[in-house]
């Protein structure tokens, strides 16, 4: 049985449920054309995004991705302001200028989702450099997908971090596809973790649908990284249940495959684990789930009642 505390497990469970409820809502909005633009949902990947961030110290940093809702909820975010951002409101994290792909909260350690695949990886390395130079003891958790590991920015950044022994965890959420491209076609190797060998750093493969494994691995790796041993690459295997973005007919994968993975739901899995091991009662967990849905409804309400950004803000904040 795990030695993770009940409090932490419950918190992970809560945030995973918030992420799920948040994205269900967002999906609903998009399906009805109630939101502008596009979004990339991480339903099915909640353990990966949430439990990894939960294993950080509060003052650690993350760089998030286009598929980042679970990640930033894992890091701890105000759901109201997050929903407001998604709806383009002035009360949102980016005053309505960023939207789903740019949710950021630099002060709280979230250096931003990124619309560019691989775009956040060098930023994570730079943030880690700051921590090393200033000896803050903080580390950076850098998220990206399987597809992103084919970008040059991945290679250059991991190499740079490896030679400078920077405190950064490269966390690859391998959901088997980069848009329509299966991992098996986009690279000639099975384990993305093997790419660590090109930089002389440790590589781990974990079950990204197992919140406990995710949490424990990141916790352990975080200490290694924090102690000045240099970066680590973690490959977290998971799956997105929904299409790549708003508009995706998903012709590139089978319904059976999707169903198979839905059966591996990370939220259900943690729930069952907690029940089986008496970490929590059915009612407790139901309550958390219900509360998550309610909180998202409240967030929607908050967002709906929030003002649009004033037109004057259009030309503000281009320069500091």
């Amino acid at each position, binding site marked *: 049985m795990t030695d993770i505390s009940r409090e932490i497990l419950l918190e992970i469970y809560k945030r995973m449920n918030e992420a799920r409820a948040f994205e269900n809502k967002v999906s609903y909005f998009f399906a009805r054309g109630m939101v502008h633009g596009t979004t990339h949902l991480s339903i099915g990947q909640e353990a990966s995004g949430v439990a990894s961030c939960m294993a950080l110290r509060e003052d650690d940093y993350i760089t998030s991705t286009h598929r980042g809702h679970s990640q930033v909820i894992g890091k701890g975010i105000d759901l109201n302001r997050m929903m407001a951002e998604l709806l383009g409101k002035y009360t949102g994290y980016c005053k309505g200028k960023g939207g789903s*792909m740019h949710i950021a909260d630099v002060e709280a350690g979230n250096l931003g989702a990124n*619309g560019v695949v691989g775009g956040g990886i060098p930023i994570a390395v730079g943030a880690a450099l700051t921590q090393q130079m200033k000896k803050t003891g903080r580390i950076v958790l850098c998220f990206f997908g399987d597809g992103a590991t084919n*970008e040059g920015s991945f290679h250059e950044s991991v190499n740079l971090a490896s030679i400078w022994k920077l405190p950064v965890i490269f966390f690859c959420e391998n959901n088997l596809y980069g848009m*329509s491209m299966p991992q098996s076609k986009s690279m000639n190797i099975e384990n993305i973790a093997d790419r660590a060998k090109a930089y002389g750093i440790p590589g781990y493969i974990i079950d990204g649908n197992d919140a406990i494994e995710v949490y424990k691995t990141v916790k352990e790796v975080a200490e290694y990284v924090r102690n000045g041993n240099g970066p680590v690459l973690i490959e977290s295997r998971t799956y997105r249940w929904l299409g790549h973005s708003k508009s995706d007919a998903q012709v590139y994968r089978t319904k059976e495959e999707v169903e198979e993975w839905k059966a591996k739901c990370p939220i259900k899995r943690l729930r069952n684990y907690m029940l089986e091991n008496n970490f929590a009662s059915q009612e407790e967990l139901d309550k958390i789930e219900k509360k998550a849905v309610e909180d998202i409804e409240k967030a929607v309400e908050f967002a709906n009642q929030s003002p*649009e950004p004033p037109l004057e803000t*259009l030309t503000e904040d281009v320069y500091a």
Partner: protein
Amino acid sequence: MKDMKEMTYKDAVKLAMCEEMRRDENVFLMGEDVGLYGGAFGVSVGMIEEFGEERVRDTPISEAAITGAAAGAAVTGMRPIVEIMFMDFTTIAMDALVNQAAKMRYMFGGKAKVPMTLRCPGGSGTGAAAQHSQSLEAWFCHVPGLKVVVPGTPADAKGLLKAAIRDDNPVVFVEQKTLYKEKGMVPLDEDFIIPLGKGEIKKEGSDVTVVTYGRMLPRVLRVAEELEKEGISVEVVDPRTLVPLDKELIINSVIKTGRVVLVNEACKTGGFIGEIAAIIAESEAFDYLDAPIVRLAGLDIPIPYNPRLEAAAVPSEEQIRAGIMKVMNR
């Protein structure tokens, strides 16, 4: 010329690719998700069924390698079309495009040809925010060795893309995402080619010249038609190809009308209409100008997410109208 058919801008792009791929086995398409998925904007839907995965190649997310590989394939005898999913991601391919593809011929003393076409959708208006909405054509216009095309109608999209594919130089072909679903009559003739460097007067007029291209073209045309009713005769000039540029067409129109408004969606500072303004100001048309040149362009800001803000970041029909009124001193 054979028949015409009404079709969308997107379908016109696809038709051009399909015709050229049928005509020349050296032409092929590669890019992220261009195969089964049919491209992020669905431009190539169905092409993999006709041409197979050898000629409609899905690539990993590796813009630098894809573009550089296109240059390498082109210089050795193929005629690749590369799709970069958003114009914003050409940032990752700039070495391959600018330092390699564009310069190979010159650096090698004329002993190389690089017949490749880089297609990318540009522009805002889809709610995709700062990293998916840029109009960066001015960058490419500043790179000798590249040609740059920005079609504003379905027919132009077809005729110009075919010309680009047949051209022996690297061509950056900027599609306009907000026009993808716009319809227009398109010639079905398989040899319908619009020569690169030939602009078109989209509407004749005598009081004022408006030079514009791409997404702004339909806006300008709508305003011009309204103003016509109000007694202001607007000539709308669309260069279509920015490099090479049909300077003569622009200058002659300005000489005729004596007044000029320039409109593009890109950020004002450093946008291509600045270059057009300079060309006019240093030409013989200068002496015919009855009023300062008016430029209407996107604001110098990243594109924001909020739809109201996003819309306000680029010239609206009202602003275009006001710009024309200003140059008319009304």
